[in-house]
């Protein structure tokens, strides 16, 4: 056994990660953060103090045993580290790249009180990437149980739910409206942040579990949730259709040509390859002086895509300051390095057009920070008489999304007052056997939260179907207080279920 580590004995510096040089990377779509090598990972794993009372785990939405997997790295048991990770997280290569670690595990890391926190996300990614290149997967053998499960949407919520149900022995089919699976991971987050190869590998792992993925299938319109449950014979259904439906601001000039949502810009580029127009047929008509409104991950992605496609000037206009920006810190840093100009405390009040109905700029107003609002962030207040004109030939809205209406339009599912699907604590919707999770329940959130919701719903679906759930990690959080009934574990409902063929 190694000597007990203390804050003084561990490597003091956080192991840096190699990055593509900003000057070079804005000319390509290759990944920006290059990932750890073996030495880097071993060195960084040494920085974990293996706290007996872990601070970091409660910060993880899916409660990964963080010291557990890092200890395996230190012991050079990489496969073991992967096994620990995948007990809680099915997509380590993805989450290691896109989780807002600074607000989650790393934000609570004890080392972070004195030094820079352990680079948990980078270690997670390193293991995830190794699993992909080594072809590791954890496929438990399960007797097929004859249950048919339908999953609507192939984003992280749907993928996670599908995997858990398949592992439990169910026959799982995922339906996706687009021609490629992955949800936001595919059409939203660009290649340089999350390579398609990584998504393909994770989808491939899903197929290995026997999950079928049917693209080009718009559920609600091609068939309804009711039909899935009845005529089509799905014993349970999970809805993970994401938030979608981008918001606009309802200010004059929004329908001018050259004004578009970040979702449209990113979909045209990431899914439809507009950057390769005319080899691919989908155009984008990129501007040269682009203003992106908003400062979340979506805004950062939109701006950095524009730079790579050759826009001369890219500006970020945000009504609060950098401190309140919802984007991952790393993304803001990267955008800045790449030459994005930030204009904090400003908001558009009108979009201005030329005589051809093309955008020529916008009128903005300066803001100052007032009292904190419900979200705890300071409310931006317009400064009277501070209006100014801002020149731009393309304006991109990245100010959030609303609930996608299709499932609501085509089913009787109860919605909450914002139009998202209403669920109870177990993620059950108002229709028996139909569960929902991810952005369509919470509104725009994060990959790991969507995945966690998919897994939680899977756990509830198993209970509903009477499949014994060995996944104690998740069943505990949804268990009601009564866990036994006449001395029988309530989770074991299969004793009472008679299955009619």
């Amino acid at each position, binding site marked *: 056994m190694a000597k007990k580590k203390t804050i003084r004995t561990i490597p003091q510096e956080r192991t840096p990660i190699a990055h593509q040089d900003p000057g070079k990377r804005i000319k390509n779509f290759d990944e920006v953060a290059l990932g750890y090598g073996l030495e880097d990972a071993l060195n960084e794993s040494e920085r974990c103090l293996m706290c007996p009372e872990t601070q970091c785990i409660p910060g993880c939405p899916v409660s990964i045993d963080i010291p557990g997997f890092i200890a395996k790295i230190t012991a050079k048991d990489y496969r073991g580290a992967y096994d620990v990770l995948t007990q809680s997280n099915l997509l380590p290569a993805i989450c290691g790249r896109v989780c807002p670690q600074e607000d989650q595990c790393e934000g609570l890391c004890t080392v972070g009180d004195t030094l820079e926190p352990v680079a948990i996300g980078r270690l997670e990614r390193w293991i995830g990437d190794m699993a992909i290149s080594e072809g590791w997967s954890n496929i438990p053998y399960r007797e097929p149980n004859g249950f048919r499960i339908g999953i609507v949407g192939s984003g992280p919520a749907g993928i996670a739910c599908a995997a858990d149900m398949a592992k439990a022995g169910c026959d799982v089919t995922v339906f996706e409206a687009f021609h490629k699976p992955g949800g936001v991971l595919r059409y939203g987050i660009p290649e340089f942040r999350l390579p398609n190869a990584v998504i393909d590998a994770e989808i491939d792992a899903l197929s290995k579990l026997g999950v079928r993925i049917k693209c080009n299938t718009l559920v609600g319109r091609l068939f309804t949730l009711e039909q899935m449950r009845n005529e089509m014979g799905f014993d349970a259904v999970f809805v993970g259709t994401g938030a979608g439906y981008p918001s606009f601001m309802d200010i004059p000039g929004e329908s001018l040509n050259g004004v578009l949502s970040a979702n*449209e810009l990113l*979909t045209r580029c990431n899914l*439809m390859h507009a950057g390769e127009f005319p080899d691919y047929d989908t*155009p984008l008509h990129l501007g040269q002086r682009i203003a992106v409104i908003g400062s979340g991950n979506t805004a950062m992605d939109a701006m950095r895509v524009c730079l790579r496609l050759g826009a001369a000037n890219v500006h970020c206009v945000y009504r609060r300051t950098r401190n309140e920006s919802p984007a991952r810190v790393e993304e803001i840093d990267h955008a800045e390095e790449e030459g994005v100009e930030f204009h904090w405390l400003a908001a558009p009040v009108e979009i201005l057009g030329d005589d051809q109905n093309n955008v020529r700029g916008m009128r903005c107003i300066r803001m100052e920070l007032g009292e904190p609002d419900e979200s705890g962030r300071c409310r931006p207040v317009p400064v009277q008489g501070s209006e100014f004109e801002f020149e731009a030939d393309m304006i991109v809205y990245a100010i959030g999304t609303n609930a996608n209406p299709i499932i609501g339009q085509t089913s009787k599912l109860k919605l909450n007052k914002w139009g998202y699907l209403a669920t109870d604590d177990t993620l059950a919707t108002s229709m028996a056997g139909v569960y929902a999770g991810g952005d369509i329940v919470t509104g725009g959130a994060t990959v790991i939260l969507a995945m966690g919701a998919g897994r939680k719903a899977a756990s509830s679906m198993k209970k509903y179907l009477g499949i014994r759930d060995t996944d104690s990690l998740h069943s505990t959080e949804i268990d009601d207080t009564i866990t036994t009934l006449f001395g029988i574990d309530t989770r074991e409902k299969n004793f009472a279920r008679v299955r009619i063929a």
Partner: protein
Amino acid sequence: MGSTSSERTDLQKAFNTSPGLEDESAVEIIRREDFSDVTFMLEFHHPMMAKAAKPGQFVIVIPQEHGERIPLTIADFDRKKGTVTLVIQAVGKTTKEMQQTCHRGTPLFGVVGPMGTPSHIGNNKKVVCVGGGLGVAPVFPQARAFKESGAYVIGVIGFRNKELVFWEEKFRKYCDEFIICSDDGSVGIKGLVTDGIKLALKKHTDIDEVVAIGPPIMMKACAETTRPANIKTTVSLNPIMVDGTGMCGGCRVKIGEGIKFACVDGPDFDGHQVDFDDLMNRLKRFNEDEKKALERWSVSCRIRGKEAPPTGPRL
């Protein structure tokens, strides 16, 4: 919950034989018919979609792997045969390429649908269904549905000239009255569809609804024709789309004071509320790029044409 076993096997069967669903095959074209130099009809096999399709809905087609997602209205569907019909006008790169490459047996890279909110057929007693040029195809399923729901249907269709006429008989079959117009008078009355609407309005004072589909400028004129008499007028909007699922907002249109996404909130809207000028401006968004794509494609066709003239039967 109350589904009979025959219903269950029915839908299950449709599910099992629909392309891209239970079997992995691409959607395959089973019939093509050319109506004119620029207009052609494609029929493909997709039992599930044929079962689900309702008047007013559309599909998004991705013709080939590098292709664009283009919206096309479902012009007909046959639930028994399990087929869906599209009528396409070759206007730009994608549709011209489809005109050249899509024949019987050609697979389409992707077809998704039905999309959009179905038309409201309701309990109307008397309706006018107006189709301008290509618009005859998308308005056909509505005319048929109105007829089948027991309404008195007045069909008004218009073309530039006789050569462009298609589906006249098919359409007439579901109409109690039928007016055909042409710009040059080579067929039917000489005049625009708005003249046909005026005729109908003069003769009938109890029209519940006018449904008009065609180019935006025509739908605008129809809405103006019915506005004085305040007759409910429904139009089907065709803004540029990407996903067709409400995710991008590219298809947003101005309806009254608000913004709607045509792909999920429409494509049918109250014609008296639509800002047609806004729609027409937004359709010009990519004009430069579209021209570039078409030119490049035409050049590549000429080059290929020299090396190997296109062969194969034109069905």
